[in-house]
């Protein structure tokens, strides 16, 4: 109890609250700009948190993540261009509502649904993560090896169109993680006598290169092409002739959509807790469930308020739930969670079952900050709608080059040498090619993060089973996970993927 209270006390200091609020603000702004997204913003922001305490740093980053999740809905509703993939389902009814002259109503419903979904999943995280970690503590190295094998295979299978390509990307990620000193005997592995490589490839240089710099390069390329084909038009959210009732979500409307929000929150939480699935399928499933449950399904796609609520609550509910496997097992649920893991590692925390025992106060501080961030999301989102709508009109040719400069300076801070900057550029080019060739970068990065842990538990397992490999059969959980891995390879790799795992069509 003392740990919980001390964690909450750390989270609720003025400085920390200000950082969370700033993070939410930055997140909404970044999320609102098409092409920019939460993971990119978190990747660039991590080096800026080097001087902060772990709680403050992680709270700031979580604030960005939460803000960006709602921010994606702003351009989805006003421009029919989702700020991030998870907001695609929000465009289905958000944009038609905006075209009907109710953009503010749609934006506010998206905000409320986002906050409801996010808060629900945070509460589930807080209630479930610790018992989950306790369960994970009962696992030995054999079970952990099998679990990691299952997670890597499953993520590789569900993130792209081809499981084979996902597995190739995943094993390339594991290979990249072996560069540096061998953890057992400190033997240099493929360091090419470069001193900077002895610590391995800096995770942040990879993350900034692959998620931020490369994304900006792709956006710059898309921008040049879009200019050639003409600019896109948006809806004016603050048209003075809009009647008052069309600018707000009334109590009755909120009440009518609350059931939809809660249903979607449950869907999003379940999807978010499964590694690899992420918020985009959650948004689609939430939207689909809202449509199926509606008494007026014919209104969906033409501006149904329930459609916006269903999609937004579901995609936002993945934010907290993604952290369940991240914190309890050390297995990141999606790319944002993977970057948050790298932030935790940089600040001296190793995610996994022991984190609750070793850094309980930091963790409960993080939970407190997450709940507060939802409140800030509501307040800042509501108060700043005019500003966020204006941000959409900022020309990309000013924003993107400045972000490139931030990538350079952020990468320099990692090791305070130009080596990390060079690596970042190299990974940006690699990422560009991987995306074009459809090799999953999510599988690559998650495997890179899990690689050292996987090697460690595999080593322990081999030591354990050296005398008698048949003792594996005394471990039913490990056997069960191995069977599950084989089943997922067969079901997702060679059979027809269930609809939930398929790439959504816009």
């Amino acid at each position, binding site marked *: 109890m003392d740990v919980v209270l001390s964690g909450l006390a750390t989270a609720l200091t003025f400085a920390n609250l200000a950082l969370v609020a700033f993070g939410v603000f930055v997140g909404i702004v970044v999320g609102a700009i098409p092409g920019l997204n939460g993971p990119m913003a978190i990747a660039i922001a991590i080096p800026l948190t080097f001087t902060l305490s772990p709680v403050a740093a992680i709270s700031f980053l979580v604030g960005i993540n939460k803000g960006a999740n709602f921010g994606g809905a702003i351009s989805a509703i006003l421009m029919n261009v989702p700020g991030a993939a998870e907001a695609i389902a929000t465009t289905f009814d958000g944009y038609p509502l905006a075209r009907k002259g109710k953009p503010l109503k749609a934006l506010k419903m998206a905000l409320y649904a986002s906050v409801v979904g996010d808060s629900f999943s945070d509460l589930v995280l807080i209630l479930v993560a610790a018992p989950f970690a306790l369960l994970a503590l009962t696992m030995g190295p054999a079970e952990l090896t099998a679990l990691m094998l299952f997670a890597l295979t499953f993520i590789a299978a569900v993130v792209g169109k081809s499981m084979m390509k996902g597995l190739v990307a995943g094993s390339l990620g594991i290979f990249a993680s072996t560069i540096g000193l061998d953890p057992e005997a400190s033997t240099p592995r493929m360091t090419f006598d470069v001193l900077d490589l002895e610590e391995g490839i800096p995770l942040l240089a990879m993350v900034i290169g692959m998620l931020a710099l490369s994304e900006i390069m792709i956006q710059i390329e898309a921008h040049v092409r879009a200019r050639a084909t003409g600019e896109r038009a948006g809806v004016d959210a603050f048209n003075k002739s809009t009647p008052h009732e069309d600018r707000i979500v009334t109590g009755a409307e909120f009440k009518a959509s609350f059931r939809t929000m809660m249903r979607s929150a449950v869907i999003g939480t379940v999807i978010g807790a499964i590694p690899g699935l992420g918020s985009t399928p959650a948004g689609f499933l939430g939207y689909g469930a809202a449509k199926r449950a509606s008494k007026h399904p014919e209104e969906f796609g033409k501006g149904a308020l329930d459609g916006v609520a269903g999609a937004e609550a579901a995609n936002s509910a993945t934010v907290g739930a993604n952290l369940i496997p991240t914190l309890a097992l050390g297995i990141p649920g999606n790319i944002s969670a993977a970057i948050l893991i790298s932030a935790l590692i940089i600040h001296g925390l190793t995610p996994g079952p022991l984190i609750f025992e070793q850094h309980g106060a930091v963790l409960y501080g993080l939970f407190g900050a997450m709940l507060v961030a939802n409140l800030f999301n509501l307040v800042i989102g509501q108060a700043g709608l005019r500003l966020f709508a204006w941000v959409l009109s900022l020309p990309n040719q000013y924003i993107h*080059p400045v972000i*490139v400069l931030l990538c350079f300076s952020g990468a320099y801070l990692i090791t305070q040498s130009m080596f990390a900057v060079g690596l970042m*550029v190299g990974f940006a080019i690699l990422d560009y090619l991987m995306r074009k060739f459809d090799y999953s970068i999510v599988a690559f990065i998650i495997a890179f993060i899990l*690689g050292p842990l996987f090697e460690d538990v595999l080593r322990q397992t*081999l030591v354990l089973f*050296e005398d008698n490999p048949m003792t594996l059969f005394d471990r039913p959980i490990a056997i069960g996970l191995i069977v599950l891995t084989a089943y997922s390879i067969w079901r997702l790799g060679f059979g027809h993927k269930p609809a939930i795992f398929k790439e959504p069509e816009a």
Partner: protein
Amino acid sequence: MRTVDIVSSAVVVLFGMVLMAVIIPGWVPVEEGPEFGLSATTMPIVASVTFTTLAAAFFFHRLRGRGEQTEADEQYDRTQPIERKNWLFLLRGGIFLIAMTALFNWAGFLLAGPPTVAGFMLMMEEKRPWHVAVTAFGATAAIWLFFWQFLKFPLP
């Protein structure tokens, strides 16, 4: 997409073979390690064998063609994921980024920042010189000051 899959998997196979034949034996010393557990070469070799085998299997799978193809599969195969203009952009952007990294290393942030921003603005077809100049110098100065004064991490 089929051609791209075949070429990309062939490249991965080639990369894996170079790793296993040249790089791992040359750059991971085989020393007397502890008598238990894994040697330093095990994980790099396991990972290389895995992706090389998978990429080879994928190469033959795509070369042979699939048995049953749905309309979605055929449509996916018809997509052209990377075209000449993409390669040209990658070449232009890549060379520019590498040149700017070298400039950073040689001249420092304050001198390399403005040409980096200006270069990308021009690439994005911003043609107003004053806008380019103010953004390039303003952003560089603001970031430099932020890192130096606020984060206490002076940029080079």
